[in-house]
């Protein structure tokens, strides 16, 4: 197996296919108190993230939208990962996730260990053109938390 095929299998792990085929928390939330839209103009990916935050804790999270397998699986796994977590922990998780995708020195380091299932996205680092696919949902989540009005962009 050449290097690129190994990298490809690291990128497209079974858990990513699973969440792409059957995204979790994939529905609008009628009683959401936070939501934001995200858009990647380069590829047309679009999603909306919904949150219910009680006492600075994310008690519920969902999303709708369309995108590639990486983007859809990332949004799905994100909603699972943040439910029940305090908002400051969620933001810290975003920073750790982003570092894992973009910072070579973060590879196999302590931050990745804290990411749990989100570590399946470590393979994205080998595909710089796809980092935006994996982070769109997180940028949108951040905007939903801070109440930004403009759609989140990865550009």
């Amino acid at each position, binding site marked *: 197996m*050449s*290097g*690129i*095929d190994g*990298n*490809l299998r690291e*990128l*497209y792990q079974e858990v990513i*296919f699973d969440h792409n085929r059957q995204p979790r928390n994939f529905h609008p939330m009628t009683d959401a108190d936070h939501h934001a839209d995200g858009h990647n103009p*380069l*590829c*047309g*990916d*679009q999603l909306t993230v919904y949150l219910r935050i009680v006492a600075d804790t994310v008690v519920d999270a969902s999303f709708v939208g*369309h*995108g*590639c*397998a*990486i983007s859809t699986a990332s949004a799905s796994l994100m909603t699972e990962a943040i439910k029940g977590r305090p908002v400051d922990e969620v933001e810290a998780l975003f920073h750790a996730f982003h570092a894992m995708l973009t910072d070579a020195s973060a590879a196999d380091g302590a931050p990745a260990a804290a990411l749990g299932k989100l570590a399946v996205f470590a393979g994205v680092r080998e*595909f710089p*053109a*796809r980092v935006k*696919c994996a982070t769109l949902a997180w940028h949108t989540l951040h905007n939903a938390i801070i109440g930004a009005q403009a759609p989140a962009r990865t550009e």
Partner: protein
Amino acid sequence: MNAATEDLSARAPAATSLGRTHDFPILARPVHGRRLVYLDNGATTQKPEAVIEAERRFYRESNANIHRGVHWLSQHATDLYEAARRTVQHFINAAHAEEVVFTRGTTEAINLVAHSWGRSALRAGDEILLTTLEHHSNIVPWQLLCEQTGALIKVVPVSDTGELDLDAFDTLLNERTRLLAITHVSNALGTINPVAMLAAKAHAVGATVLVDGAQAVAHHKVDVQALGCDFYAFSGHKLYGPTGIGALWGRAELLAAMPPWQGGGDMIRTVSFARSTYADAPQRFEAGTPNIAGSVALAAAIDYVSAIGIERIAAHEHALLAHASAALAAIPGVRLIGTAADKAGILSFMVEHIHPHDLGTILDSEGVAIRAGHHCAMPLMTRFGIPGTARASLGVYNDAADIAALVNAIHKAQDLFGTRSTTP
């Protein structure tokens, strides 16, 4: 390679290869340890050695600024620049070399017309007729112009096959139509528009006609006089030439009446602080030092294409398009977007359950370079209800082996996603 692919390769006519691969140094470099299969010619073509050498030779032997020096080298560079203009003139069969304005490319050529012709010719309530097939570069300049003038944009819709709705065209065209701005070949779908017929109809109501030829010039013979249009815009880099050089052709009487759009050196006759007077076309529209080396290399690209024969290239790409369309249609789960009867070498397609971006990454892992996305034609993608497509676009060096590699790479993507059908 599966049996179906082998059969199609075996049946491919000889015309599906022109044997030009070795003219292009970049095609010898591997990507991810595999043979580069370059099928992104709609974005930009690769450059033959003749073009690379022409640009290098200009800087080594001929470089000076043009139209100003009395020294020998300046005259030499000027001669090369003006010779390049005549090469473009003959390539598109323009009546006069002075009708050819060098630009950075198609986008700048269209913006030139929008700024210069558009601002002086259009009034509030005038209509600009576009089509759903247009690239953003033939939409946004007109939207900016409409904001400034109060003119309105009307849009000719397309059918499910990606062909213009000609009945709607007839309905939308009226005495308020001042401009028809239309692509010759759709960059996203490959549809070839019946430009000569539409230009005649537009002229009958007194409209001016601009044709976006970015995707056309490298793929079939363009004769601006036979087309009967008023402006024709194209880029060098989609014609095996360098980036940053292209041309606008405009009818002499239109260019003569148009005001400058950028001010600076080279475009003036006299300058005083009270008033300046301007040079005639084409210099009036070429402010500042132009891309001299680029123009020389563009001429080399045109010479390269002409030496093979643009008709031969057209026949080759047509045969390869037919072969590739059949090969893709034979893969279960693959759907072609854009199936016009008259098409240039562009294949836009969707693979069931695989997003174009995922497909692009997996194809790249096999050395197969395609474009994935909206192709700067968002209104067209919206028309088809899709976020984007995968697009393979053909060039002079592509052959049946490239299509076999594309098919195999699609199979690899389907295997990886677990969506490959075992029943054809």
